[in-house]
């Protein structure tokens, strides 16, 4: 039976010392109840309370770290089945499989490509997280390929069934916390020992969810903590989705500790579109790590964008600081565009302004992170608010003109805004895509 926030509060010191990072013991207790934080954050907790809270305080899905301090990725620690209930916490790690059957030149080319996979979207850097080396040849070749990959500062996964080769690879990777993929009922003991010896994490794979649970339990008994659950991606998609959902439910709803680990989905080599679509399904439905083969830039960009969407906090839309942003070498004659402080609105406008190469001021109004139309409907993007922002921004001192360009969708506020602000209102395009030609045609 899960303890409520209040039950937990009764067991805490109630000193509100803030050392846990929360303003009060009650806030900490509520967060513990949601399993969003660990009890160890409280330095003053009594032994008695510790025992009572032990099970409760562990996150239902363990947080697993791959890589070393300089290059690490964390997955797991998820608390909900649907993102609207709270949010998804640790973005699914996305990585690429490098097979040792490729020539050294091909491998180097692939690695060069992988290094380029970082994109800026909505003010955030999105990038891929890890590389998996897959053994299909001799142990020697596997080590040779590992050495090629070492230069690329990303956490690694080792896909192999070869105990000796893995041992050699793990020696080289000491301190870098790689992932071993994957232990089955045959090699479970040997792989657990290796993982423990070298501080690696270990994925377990099996045909059924029952066997997965049993295998994970055995690994845990061996003393290894860092476990991942591999789903069978060669099944019918509905079966794989069912398995992914059931593993998440077991961890969250049944507090099943044997399945309370992040899930890894390895996608076999397919046409790039199919790999992307499969990866998209796993990303939406609970995978903690996805490994794929395609290195098409468009596929990677699409998948990283989907991850950014799904892992956005639904309670906190991405916002920017509401203020005046001069873009390019603005002068006292440069135009002024007004938009909201919703990141997506601002960055979409910014992208188009930059593309136009016309130095322009963008005034971002505090709409609490709402987009233009939503904010307008919610009365957060009103003539009053915009007039206020204009005054506070200090732009009136910087410019010779008083022309303000507003989004086409809120043309209806022109009259009132003109009255309130004293500026002349120019109705801009409805869609940001129309901005470059609009700015170029301004006289």
């Amino acid at each position, binding site marked *: 039976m899960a303890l409520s926030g209040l039950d937990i509060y009764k067991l805490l010191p109630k000193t509100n010392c803030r050392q846990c990072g929360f303003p009060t013991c009650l806030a900490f207790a509520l967060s513990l109840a949601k399993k969003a934080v660990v009890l160890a954050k409280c330095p003053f907790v009594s032994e008695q309370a510790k025992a009572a809270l032990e099970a409760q305080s562990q996150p239902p899905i363990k947080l697993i770290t791959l890589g070393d301090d300089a290059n690490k990725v964390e997955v797991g620690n998820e608390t909900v089945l*649907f*993102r*609207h209930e709270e949010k998804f916490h640790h973005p699914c790690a996305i990585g690429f499989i490098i097979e040792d059957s490729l020539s050294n030149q091909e491998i180097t080319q692939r690695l060069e490509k992988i290094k*380029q996979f970082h*994109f800026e*979207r909505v003010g955030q850097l999105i990038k891929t997280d890890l590389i998996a080396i897959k053994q299909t040849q001799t142990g020697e070749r596997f080590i040779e390929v590992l050495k090629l990959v070492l230069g690329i500062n990303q956490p690694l996964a080792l896909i192999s069934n070869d105990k000796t080769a893995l041992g050699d690879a793990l020696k080289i990777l000491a301190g870098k916390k790689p992932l071993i993929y994957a232990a089955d009922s045959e090699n479970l003991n040997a792989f657990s020992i290796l993982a423990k010896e070298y501080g690696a994490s270990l994925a377990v794979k099996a045909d059924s*969810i*029952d066997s997965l*649970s049993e295998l994970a339990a055995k690994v845990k008994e061996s003393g290894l903590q860092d476990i991942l659950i591999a789903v069978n991606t060669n099944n*019918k*998609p*509905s079966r794989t*989705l*069912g398995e992914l*959902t*059931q593993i998440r*439910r*077991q961890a969250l*709803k*049944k507090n*099943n500790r044997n399945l309370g680990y992040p899930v890894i989905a390895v996608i076999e080599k397919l046409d*790039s*579109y*199919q790999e*992307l*679509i499969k990866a*998209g*399904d796993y990303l*939406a*439905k609970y995978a903690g790590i996805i490994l794929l083969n395609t290195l*098409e*830039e*468009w*596929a*990677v*960009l*699409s*998948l990283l*964008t*989907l991850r*950014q*969407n*799904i892992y*956005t906090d*639904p309670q906190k839309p991405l916002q920017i600081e509401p203020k005046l942003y001069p873009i390019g070498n603005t002068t006292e004659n440069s135009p002024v565009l007004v938009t909201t402080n919703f990141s*997506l609105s601002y960055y*979409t406008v910014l*992208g188009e302004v930059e593309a136009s190469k016309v130095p322009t001021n963008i005034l971002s109004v505090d709409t609490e992170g709402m*987009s233009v*139309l*939503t904010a307008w*409907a919610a009365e957060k993007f009103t003539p009053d608010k915009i007039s206020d922002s204009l005054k506070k921004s200090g732009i009136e001192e910087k410019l010779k003109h008083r022309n303000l360009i507003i989004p086409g969708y809120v043309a209806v506020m022109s009259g009132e805004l003109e009255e309130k602000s004293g500026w002349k209102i120019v109705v801009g395009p409805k*869609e940001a*895509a129309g901005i470059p030609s609009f700015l170029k045609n301004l006289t």
Partner: protein
Amino acid sequence: MALDLVKEKWSNAVAVVTIGALKDEGGTRSSVVRCGGEEGLPFLFAEGKTPHRPVIAMEVLDVEPDDWPQSLTSAIGPAIKNPVEWAVKCEKDYKADLICLRLAGAHPDAQNRPAEQLTKVVKDILQATTIPLILIGCGEDKRDNEILPLCSQAAKGERLLIGETVQANYKTLTASALADGHSIIAQSPIDINIAKQLNILISDMSMSIERIVINPTVGALGYGLEYAYSIMERARLAALSGDKMLGMPFICFVGYEAWRAKEAKASETEFPTWGKQLERGIAWEALTATTFLQAGADILVMRHPKAVELVRKHIDELMKE
């Protein structure tokens, strides 16, 4: 020891909406499309049946589109200049489940085409194709209230899915659809309360819930997709838990949204690190579509033939039990 599986038990199913009418039903279609009817969450067949697979409608405009990127228009070819040929191509070559005709040319700011021309396109497409038809106005309420009732009448008995109604403007179109035996699209602005409210208002005009489809207003990948995704999940959970006024199938205008995204349109010269333009556009539309399938989409309205093919194949795979 076998695990005690966590299975959800739901008390309500999504309503089944039928689009298109056969000859002996008063229409002229040679097949009909049934959508909705889910008894559980998407593709979790162990918990409830999904009697009807998600379907793909291909979007056809009554006038040649002027803001579609070339990677999209060239995939369709010269037929894009003629809505009837275009619709036939969607049925014959691209194996669309339905046609979605958007009367873009009716917009006062576009060509403001006269009503006779618009009703003629509807009739001509119905004559030249055998699959069911979704009909969408130009989005300008006043003009739509004038032309959609005429189009509705011209297609009487064909059991179209016709739209769109919004909270501030639903009566005229609902009345027409009721009179002419069509079903209706209820559009809400990514807002579960408005979605429900509008469904209630439409039902109050004695439109049965088996004749309403929800348009939750989706955003493209990278452009607010997650908002609609979560609204759809919430609405579907409510529906399965018994809320009949949210228990209608979803229609998602994926093509319309995806092809507005910069990532779908920008050239490779402009963004060399984004990869090939054509594939990028197709991927953008396809991934937007398949992600909404995971949130419960029933009808996907799409544009690029290759994206349609990819998503149809994925639906084939997803539906295997």
